[in-house]
């Protein structure tokens, strides 16, 4: 059972068709399967529904598929750091379904784990709950959300073995592990391709059962969206832990 393919184009051969649903790992530009995205672009496949937390930036990551108008719908939590995205969205050329980030993550996890629906308190009383069942459990209100399952998942990992076992690096893990479980076919691009046994069995983040195809993509340029640093001179003075989050605002 050979899972290893020679390059991204070969790894996607026979898997792409118009109007399919594709999950794409990554948070911002961190941990995105950029080489696989490039291969999707080159294939010319159109009308894609893309499930991804973000939509890349102009000319990088999913931004490349927006430029070529291959995406018709995004299911995301935070987008628009991308002029072409904004243009298409405002021109009604692109549909967008916003999901709270945790709901999106859980919907994908549920889809991969055979859970068709679950209840969450996230979004109760907001636009997110409109048209959805809201139900009380133990005195609190929860909204029902559905699992997500795609035709294809594209993920990025730091290390992968020929059996398809994957390990991610630092915060490049993000949405990749759940997406790997939630599609008919999962294709992984890995920075380091190793033999079975080289990744510690207790520290395999995605077991090989979830990965049908794997392609070795030695590191290319990894982009940084917000380069924040402290100066060595200042160290310890004004620079406590760097924190950010909370989505919008």
């Amino acid at each position, binding site marked *: 059972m050979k899972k290893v393919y020679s390059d991204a184009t070969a790894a996607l051969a026979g898997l792409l068709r118009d109007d399919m649903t594709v999950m794409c790992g990554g*948070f911002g530009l961190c941990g995105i399967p950029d080489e696989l995205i490039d291969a999707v672009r080159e294939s010319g496949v159109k009308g894609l529904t893309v499930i991804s937390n973000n939509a890349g930036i102009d000319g990088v990551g999913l931004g490349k598929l927006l430029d070529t108008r291959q995406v018709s719908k995004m299911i995301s939590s935070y987008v628009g750091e991308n002029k072409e995205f904004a243009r298409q969205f405002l021109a009604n050329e692109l549909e967008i379904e916003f999901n709270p980030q*945790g709901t999106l993550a*859980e919907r994908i996890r549920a889809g991969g784990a055979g859970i068709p629906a679950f209840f*969450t*308190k996230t979004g109760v009383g907001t636009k997110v709950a409109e048209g959805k069942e809201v139900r009380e459990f133990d005195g609190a209100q929860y909204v029902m959300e559905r699992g997500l399952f795609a035709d294809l998942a594209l993920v990025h990992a730091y290390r992968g073995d020929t059996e398809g076992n994957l390990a991610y690096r630092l915060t490049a893990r993000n949405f990749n592990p759940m997406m790997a479980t939630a599609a008919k076919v999962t294709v992984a691009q890995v920075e380091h391709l190793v033999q079975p046994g080289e990744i510690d069995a207790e520290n395999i983040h995605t077991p090989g059962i979830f990965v049908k195809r794997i392609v070795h993509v030695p590191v290319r340029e990894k982009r940084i969206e917000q380069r924040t640093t402290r100066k060595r001179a200042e160290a310890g003075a004004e620079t406590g832990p760097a*924190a*950010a*989050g909370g989505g919008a*605002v």
Partner: protein
Amino acid sequence: MAWTRDQMAARAARELEDGFYVNLGIGIPTLVSNFIPEGMSVQLQSENGMLGMGPFPYEGEEDPDLINAGKQTITALPTTSYFSSADSFGMIRGGHINLSILGAMQVAENGDLANWMIPGKMVKGMGGAMDLVAGVKRVVVVMEHVARNKDGSESPKLLKACDLPLTGTHVVDMVITDLGVFTIDKKGEGGMTLIELADGVTEDEIRAKTEAAYTVALA
């Protein structure tokens, strides 16, 4: 004399307790990390999949694989752990984070919060904000007391009811503005209470700039 951004962050830091796990939003909330008291153990969670966030890296040591939820390059600590987005939001939704400090466009006297979209403007999405306010045990908002409009006028942000689309209902426990501090009995009938004034700010000034009803219980 209203509080500066740093003073607001310092006031928010007084809500921290030893052993707390905290999620800080972007903007002023990020500054709170500069005011964690010496000797207090506070672990910062970043919802993209990290617990135990360290400071920004030294120049030249940025790692594209190590970012926070604001997509800024950061560093790790000895206590750090990494996990998936599903596990991260399980942690948030499951009520395991002690405190979330975040910004807001509007807060209502019942604890409703709006901070993700303005109809008619480009909507970027709610990111993790809805999950955080719904899931974290205690939510502290840090924001300017009023919004400054393009024509120079000011609009109150502490309202009877939010008119912007909501991020969450009955979610805010405390609001720290440049003018003072309010508590909100978000699940009960206690409403909003003004508990502190910023240095040199008067009750009258706050009254004039606040639409929400509130009681006054200054220390």
